[in-house]
């Protein structure tokens, strides 16, 4: 059976035969960049369509169904429309920051892709502090949002950006704590090690109740960090019209839009890697027959399956719940999630030290 790991290795070997080592690195970087960008484009198209279909089914309607079979090319049509649209810059805007902001948000999302293991050995950069890297870089995207809000010279944008700042800074904490729970359980910061530690069962099942609590908190914090309903304070359509991207139009708006979905994908991928074993197939202890059957499904399918399951949960949240108010949002973090995750961390440590997990 083919595996992505072998394809990567053989390509590397082939390139090393043909070129000098410096050139090989350069060519590989280009290939990776192309792959990353095409992944982004596909993700944007798929996730936007998925969101619209999920919302439409929950709202007893059909959703897009005119462009292509079952409306599959709706997002392609939308993208073309957004590219052709005029990108306007408001008067008195800080033009440099205004144009920079969408790219910054996008670049952050791209950097976050680096340590993600898509399949066994199929990873851009297996950095030894992967988890730390992800939680550090993900908070940079708030700078892009703040930039967009400030430079637009619009009060709605400013309010949205400030809300987003307060929100992401606070939810970073509980997201970090819930990630820490898995780091303690697996004893490593490297993504590949964390996945290997789940070879005999996912942490969500192995880690008892503390892992479950950490998972729930992670999902809530991830929803908040990606500015999605019910935590979409930065956009808050009925209050701030469109929040920080009120003044953006055309392709720059599309970049914000795309970055939102890519961020959703990335946090869900991280959640899937940490709690659901990433590309690791579903294994139950020593049940060899069952484990063997599961191994036949390729790792990349497992990875995307788990990630899209988490994405569905986040969409499900969005189309069910009303929006919180900004002070309630902060109350939820500081009065509920933070204390709970602190206590939970203690529990996890106890579980890890006494080896109660499987």
């Amino acid at each position, binding site marked *: 059976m083919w595996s992505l790991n072998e394809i990567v290795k053989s390509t590397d070997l082939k390139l090393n035969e043909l070129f000098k080592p410096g050139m090989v690195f350069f060519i590989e970087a280009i290939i990776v960049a192309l792959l990353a960008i095409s992944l982004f484009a596909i993700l944007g198209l798929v996730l936007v369509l998925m969101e619209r279909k*999920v919302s439409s*089914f929950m709202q*007893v309607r*059909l959703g897009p*169904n005119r462009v292509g079979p079952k409306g599959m090319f709706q997002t392609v049509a939308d993208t073309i429309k957004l590219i052709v649209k005029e990108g306007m810059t408001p008067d008195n805007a800080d033009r440099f920051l205004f144009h920079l902001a969408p790219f910054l948000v996008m670049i952050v999302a791209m950097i976050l892709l680096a340590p993600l293991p898509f399949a066994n050995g199929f990873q851009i950069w297996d950095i030894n502090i992967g988890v730390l890297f992800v939680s550090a870089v993900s908070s940079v995207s708030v700078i892009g949002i703040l930039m967009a809000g400030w430079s637009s010279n619009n009060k709605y944008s400013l309010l949205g950006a400030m809300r987003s700042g307060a929100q992401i800074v606070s939810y970073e904490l509980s997201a970090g704590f819930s990630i820490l729970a898995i780091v303690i359980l697996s004893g490593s910061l490297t993504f590949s090690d964390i996945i290997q530690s789940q070879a005999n069962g996912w942490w969500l099942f192995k880690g008892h109740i503390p892992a479950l609590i950490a998972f729930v908190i992670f999902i809530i914090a991830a929803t908040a960090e990606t500015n999605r309903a019910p935590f979409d304070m930065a956009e808050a359509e009925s209050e701030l019209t469109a929040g920080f991207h009120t003044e953006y139009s055309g392709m720059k708006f599309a970049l914000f839009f795309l970055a939102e979905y890519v961020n959703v994908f990335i946090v869900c991928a991280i959640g899937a890697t940490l709690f659901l074993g990433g590309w690791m197939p579903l294994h139950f202890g020593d049940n060899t027959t069952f484990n063997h059957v599961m191994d036949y499904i390729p790792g990349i399918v497992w990875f995307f399956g788990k990630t899209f399951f988490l994405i569905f949960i986040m969409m499900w949240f969005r*189309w*069910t719940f009303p929006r919180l108010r900004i002070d309630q949002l902060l109350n939820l973090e500081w009065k509920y999630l933070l204390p709970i995750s602190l206590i939970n961390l203690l529990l996890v440590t106890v579980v890890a030290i006494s080896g109660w997990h499987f």
Partner: protein
Amino acid sequence: MFLIKYIKEVFGAVKSLAIGMRRTLSYFVRPKEIITQQYPDERPVIAERFRGEVVLMHDENNEHACTGCTACELACPNGTIKIVTKFDTTPEGKKKKALDTFVYRLEMCTMCNLCVEACPTSAIKMDTAYEHSVFDRNKLTKKLNNEGSKIRSGVE
């Protein structure tokens, strides 16, 4: 005590959210509940009383029942209807007022049905046509009586 209240609060909140999520999921997995009507493919059922536009009824002999009495014009609250009359000569040689042009301005009509109520000879009625959009506003000003139509004999 405080802790029990705190935990109760958290569980109550999670439960209320879970109930809502169950409801949306139940719709998500039951696509037969979808109520979308795909309009141009799927024509809506229009009630027979639907007020879409005013029409002057003609029979197969191209005859209508309008005497040109302008009762509808007077009843109309927004000046939608304009009746232009002429004088016909009856076979007995008497001059008689008759309808020349029934001008109906659809763009001003609010479909209030007052003209139909006012008509003494029931010559006009509300039709159920509803696709009125045109590219030129002038097309909405309509002449309701057919070319060469005349009043049905016996209608006074």
